[in-house]
């Protein structure tokens, strides 16, 4: 599973790393139980500081998407089939409110916001079916 980062982007590298892992889990290309490369390995591959990768992994751990044990390293902890963690919905709704407000403030019609959301969700589901098929 390949992760791309853009070193010239406004968004910090650890955030890009975290976002890509979240997306890979949603798309089914990273499955629960799958082992991730160690912080050192990944930093060595990107050619960036280990602390940056560590920060990205730390975000994923706090969100409960990744768990780290001394024996098996970092492992994907959750997937689309799991129940969301109790506090998740409240925080996420807050962030979504900001995102929706952005769209509304810029004059995007409600229907087109809904269409975009539907088509993105459909893309995730389609990728999950694809990666499920190629894995079996």
């Amino acid at each position, binding site marked *: 599973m*390949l992760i791309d980062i*853009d*070193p010239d982007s406004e968004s910090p590298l650890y955030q890009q790393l975290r976002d890509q892992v979240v997306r890979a889990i949603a798309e089914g290309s990273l499955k629960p139980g799958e082992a991730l490369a160690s912080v050192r390995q990944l*930093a*060595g*591959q*990107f*050619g*960036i500081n280990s602390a940056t990768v560590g920060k990205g992994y730390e975000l994923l751990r706090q969100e409960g998407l990744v768990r780290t044990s001394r024996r098996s390293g970092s492992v994907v902890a959750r997937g689309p089939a799991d129940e969301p963690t109790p506090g998740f919905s409240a925080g996420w709704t807050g962030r979504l409110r900001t995102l929706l407000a952005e769209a509304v403030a810029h004059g995007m019609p409600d229907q087109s916001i809904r269409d975009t959301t539907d088509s993105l969700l459909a893309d995730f589901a389609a990728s999950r079916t694809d990666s499920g098929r190629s894995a079996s």
Partner: protein
Amino acid sequence: MIAFVLVFAPVFTALFGVLFATIIALRPPGLPLSVRVPQAHANDAVVASAIRRFRWGLVLAWLVTAALALAVTDQTSLATLLPVLLYAAFSILVLVLCRRMILRAKREGDWFEGLPVQVSAQITSPAYHHPPIVWPALAVMVLAAATAVNVALYPSLPDPVPTHFNAAGEADGWAAKSVWSVFGVLMIGTAVVVLLAVLSIVAARYAARTQADDNAEQAALRTRVQRSMLTLLLSQLSFVIALGISAIELAQRLLPGVKWATAASAIGLAILVMVVIIAAVARGREQLRPANVRDPRNPRPDAVDDDEHWKGGLFYVNSDDPALVVPRRFGLGWTLNLGRPGGIVLTILLLLLIAGVVTVVILTAHLR
């Protein structure tokens, strides 16, 4: 004797030249002459003409080296090695001069100004690629057979035994008959085979960096092909070296009167090594073909311009990069990061090791 030198030096340098040219052909399209070039400029006239000049420079280097090799009549092992070293130095000089053309155009044209770039890496551990077991197994079998012949011949061998032969195949060094003087070469051969087997396992396991100058799948394919090419190459080399060492050894023991037998085995070994390398590179190039096809309808971000970290296009110096070992930018395999203390220490150890091996070879050849 003269005939042997006439054949050996030009053939050896020619094979080395072909090898060098084939390895250059492996470069990803974004790295002509080890200069990072964005896709939009990969086919610029200056790039094409620099590559053309580089090729002609290599031909010239070979002509000069071959002529010099013919002029050298000294028969020591150091003198036969000299043309190859000279050729390597000459090629590097040609590379440095020709890549300057591209570097200048890139600087003046600001090729990377405002271009989208990206780096990609493997976040899951890639599937472990097992190095092929058949070649090391064959190597062990060949060495075992040669050892068995040596054991059988041991009682009938003369004391002292001849241990060194000049380029014409005449014995010019002898040692008291002992386990070391009779089996030493085979022991060294076994050590080399073991070392190559270990290296092929390391090459198979090491997670090489994947840099995106294409789409992710192509970058992954490039890493995979490089890895399998190197593991197969190392294990095939272990077999060829075992075969060559056994052939030289048996030629000395079984055909002591036939002067050309040892020399022929030595040339055969050199040629076989080159053939195996060239075959591996050609095969890798074929497998890499899909990784070098670009889809003009779907332009991808370019790789990051990392030229400042590649001194002369060959040596990697980057203190911000935690990786000690990075894939070579030019040619095959990996190189050490000289921007980190660990990389410098490893490089010094490696140079000492090479210097030690060369010294031992020269000393054993001359002080017998």
